[in-house]
């Protein structure tokens, strides 16, 4: 117990301090270990994705529709286009409402009703995507009588709205009040000020929010399972079932065919490249301001 340490030649360290010091080192080591443990799956996923995906992406994959079950070859062209189609529908429906709700919260929402909407948006953000799929099924598929691209678009739009609303609000609140007052002082009506000055000033932030929401729903599968359903053929009609990249990956991953597994990896690589590019682009665009502080 009266053991002295060799850490410092100048003074002896009492045993209690040694224990504390060891604890400190152990905990630092533990924290580093957790970081490694978290980063390993990340790199493992990306490495494996690239390893399996790169060899599988070829011209046929990008330009052909799926071959009949069990037959090798074919591609996911219809799913790629279908995904883009559903996402476009979702954006058309979701972006204006989301931005509008954000404007309302920032410009007119400093009251009880605004708080209710804010809370609702946060709650909506946490609703499981599969439940949103059920609702889109109930309001669109049952009403139309069949699965459709529109139903998928509605489901994804519902998921985009809360994210866009909250980021738009945050961005508009960052615009200094003086800018608005200056506009009022010039006799510009309030609506015109909001549209041409406040929103315009915050444009890059609002777009960032939209991109994040877009990246989030681009990979969603669960809400499409019983709305867009999937399709082996081309479809660009709003009221017909449509293939989507995540759906196709899901189906192929669970199939017993090696060639379909290969295509699932190719699809996953394509999907993730798109999403990571979007996220990284957003990150890069805002880098100058706050990268280090994050």
């Amino acid at each position, binding site marked *: 117990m009266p053991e002295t340490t060799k850490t410092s030649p100048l003074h002896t360290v009492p045993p209690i301090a040694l224990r504390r010091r060891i604890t400190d080192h152990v*905990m630092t080591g533990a924290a580093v270990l957790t970081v490694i443990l978290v980063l390993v799956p990340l790199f*493992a996923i990306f490495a494996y994705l690239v390893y399996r995906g790169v060899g599988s992406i070829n011209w046929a994959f990008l330009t052909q529709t799926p071959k009949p079950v069990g037959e090798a070859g074919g591609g996911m062209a219809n799913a790629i286009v279908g995904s883009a189609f559903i996402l476009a529908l979702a954006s058309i429906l979701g972006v204006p409402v989301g931005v509008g709700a954000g404007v309302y919260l920032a410009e007119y929402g400093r009251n009880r009703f605004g708080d209710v909407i804010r809370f609702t948006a946060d709650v909506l953000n946490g609703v*499981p995507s599969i439940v949103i799929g059920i609702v889109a099924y109930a309001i669109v598929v049952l009403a139309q009588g069949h699965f459709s691209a529109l139903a998928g678009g509605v489901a994804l739009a519902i998921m985009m709205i809360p994210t866009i609303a909250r980021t738009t609000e945050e961005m508009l609140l960052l615009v200094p009040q003086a800018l608005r007052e200056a506009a009022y002082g010039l006799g510009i009506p309030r609506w015109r000020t909001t549209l041409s000055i406040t929103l315009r000033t915050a444009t890059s932030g609002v777009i960032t929010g939209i991109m994040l929401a877009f*990246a989030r729903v681009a990979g969603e599968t*669960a809400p499409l399972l019983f709305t867009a359903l999937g399709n082996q053929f081309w479809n660009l009609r709003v009221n017909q079932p449509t293939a989507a990249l995540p759906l196709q990956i899901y189906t192929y991953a669970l199939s017993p065919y090696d060639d379909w597994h290969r295509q699932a990896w190719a699809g996953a690589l394509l999907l993730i490249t798109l999403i990571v590019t979007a996220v990284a682009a957003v990150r890069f665009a805002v880098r100058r301001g706050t990268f280090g502080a994050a």
Partner: protein
Amino acid sequence: MAFSALPRPNMAVPQPVEAKKVSSLPPAGKQAAPLTHGLSSETGDHVFRFAMFLCGLAVLATLALIVYELMLRSGLSWHAFGFKFFAGHDWDPVNEQFGALPFIYGTLVSSFLALLIAVPLSIGVAVFTTEMCPLVLRGPLSFFVELLAAIPSVVYGLWAIFVLVPLLSNYVQPFLARTLGWTGLFVGPPFGISMLAAGIILAVMIIPIISSITREVLMVVPQHQREAALALGATRWEMIRVGVLRNARAGIMGGIILGLGRALGETMAVTMVIGNRPEIAKSLFAPGYTMASVLANEFSEATGNVYLSALIEIGLALFLVTIIVNALARFLVWTVTRGQPTRANA
């Protein structure tokens, strides 16, 4: 700090553009009396405000619509089974007997398993990024963890099927069976596809959520708490334990519960590895089923109104649980960050 992921608005550019627009704006007649609002601008204000109000209302209406539709369409099952629905073991679409207990059990066990793995890791990562790592590493590190959040569920599932599951069945499960088999939690054939696999993949998926919220909460702990602890002679770990973690525990709890909310509702990756068998087994090596995966698997093929209604009732239960969990989490995070909007894109 709370806005870290988003840019500051660029104030310099729009002003000259505006100058042009302003001059073209008022109708010729109104220019003489700039202080009295013309009728047109007032109407414009009302119309605009009303339109924006409608958008806000749409958010509220969406939630109301979700509740309404779920309740309306699950009515049939609710009338047929009542509370027994949540206590019954049988899931027999052919004879129209529906009991949701195996799914509730599967959802709870897989989520808690995920929390068990994810919580220590996420807090470790958050502590490392805020308190220990060199400033240069901080940005990239949080970026990488954010990337983990950007990977779609279905890609996690794909990876889990082809990498995680073989790994489990070849190495991890035999090892666990040998060393911890006596607990009864790790017995049975090591197929890989199991509750354990679902728990692990869920853990990987919720780590970014928990760690990013924890990081945010740790960053709002006042600097003087740290300085005071250090001044009293605390080591760095003691400073973190006493000065940082203790002050932030409510917020960390909020992050954990938010992660739980995500885990409860997570569908695709779980469906792909959990085995999808509606039974309750003690062993984590056994296959299970969750509320979200039964919806994913059976909803589009459900024949018969009672079957569909029973599935929607599961959806309703899932919805209510996640709402409660999320509301609790938001409240806890809010008590620490004091109403600063949190950046939780969960």
